[in-house]
């Protein structure tokens, strides 16, 4: 019990630390994801609702709608639209007059993101599948373009011939195409397990580490008189629930 209280004490300290002009921070984060899949022939449609609580008091909510199409046996293409709230960019780190540096409140700022995704897959054995997911993301809010690459492995466990659990390991990097001084401005590593409660219902937790690199913009440099780089390291605990129709 003492350990749990200590854990939350540390968590609250790290999540609510005071920000200086250069924001370096590390601590715990959390995320909840709900997905609904609908399959029709080679198309699989997806509705995703994602809510996350990140360091520096950042609350994100993303609503994604789109589909994946199985172009070849080992290749899927996906097209998605996301309405995103709570996103932050380097320009959102501001210094209002007579106030400290702080993040602009973006929780109610809705943005339109469009994603084109390619995911070649390879089955190494009857239980192990590898995937390289490459995504191009266009952000209509600020015209930012990002290339994401996510290699990963998924291992399936079966019970009486039916999927029982799957374990996955992913690593994802975000490459800035037309913004940020840091080419690789964010990276994630995921380790998760999912339980097949039913053929149409799957749920499970995951842990992830996040590294986000911040760099000063010209406006910020003009105010500060110098440039800066910051790094935020998050350790995330997430939970996902997937429903499949039919």
């Amino acid at each position: 019990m003492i350990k749990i209280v200590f854990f939350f004490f540390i968590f609250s300290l790290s999540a609510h630390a005071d920000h200086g002009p250069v924001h370096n921070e590390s601590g715990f984060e959390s995320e909840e994801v709900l997905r609904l899949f609908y399959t029709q022939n080679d198309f699989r449609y997806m509705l995703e609702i994602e809510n996350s609580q990140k360091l520096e008091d950042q609350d994100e909510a993303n609503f994604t709608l789109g589909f994946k199409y199985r172009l070849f046996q080992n290749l899927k293409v996906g097209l998605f639209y996301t309405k995103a709230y709570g996103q932050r960019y380097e320009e959102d780190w501001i210094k209002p007059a007579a106030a400290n540096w702080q993040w602009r409140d973006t929780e109610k700022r809705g943005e339109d993101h469009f994603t084109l995704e390619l995911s070649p897959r390879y089955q190494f054995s009857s239980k192990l599948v590898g995937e390289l997911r490459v995504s191009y993301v266009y952000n209509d809010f600020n015209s930012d373009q990002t290339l994401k690459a996510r290699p990963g492995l998924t291992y399936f466990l079966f019970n009486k011939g039916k999927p029982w659990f799957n374990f996955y390991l992913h690593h994802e990097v975000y490459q800035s195409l037309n913004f940020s001084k840091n080419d690789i401005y964010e990276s994630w590593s995921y380790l998760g397990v999912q339980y097949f409660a039913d053929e149409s219902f799957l749920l499970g937790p995951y842990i992830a580490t996040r590294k986000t690199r911040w760099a000063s913009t010209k406006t910020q440099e003009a105010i500060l008189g110098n440039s800066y780089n910051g790094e935020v390291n998050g350790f995330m605990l997430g939970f996902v629930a997937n429903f499949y129709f039919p």
Partner: protein
Amino acid sequence: MSKQFLIMMFCVLLIPSVFASSAKLKYYKGEVLLNNKQILNKVGTEIPNGSVVITKKNSIALIEISSDKATKIIKLDQLSSLKISELKDKEGKTTLDLNLGSAFIKYLKKSKSSTNLLEVRSRSVTMGVRGTEFFVVRPMDKKQANDVWMCVNEGVVEVKNTDGSNKQLVKKGEGIHIKEGKKITKPKAYPWTKNLNWNMNPKKGSLENKVELESAYRDLLDYDYD
């Protein structure tokens, strides 16, 4: 008796032996039944036209159907039921009905004739054999009891509905899924067929096929969770 009469009599006696087709038990393991009554426990036992061969759990039956034009070897997996509906019709064709379970079928032509001399039926589809080696299976699970799967190891197999409404040619390395015994999918390579045991010679190793059909229903490459 004249010489001509003797020659004619010789030919009449010879005709059935030259064109006859017979099915025999070539190998067995475990409990194999003929028409759900007689226990087949002797290699070489003749299996009459119209008979049903049934294999119990952990059992295998190897059946050879020979004629002057072709030899067909059938490896009947455990928990299967195969009816030899027609050993040889007027055109010389053999017709088999797989009622339950799975079977590996090897077809060896003795002549260069392109005539299709083997037809395998299951549910409302027929498989006309142009190739030499293929596998047919029906799921045990009640939910998929009306499905049929087939894959080809050598040659080509023509799959069609009995009403002729759909027809597909399945080539070497490809498989096909007949959903609900009617809807024939397009042929493609299925990962689950990679580990099928095609061996039909007990001297060359185990005949047991350990691939579970459940794996056919779990296309891991199609699995999306995010």
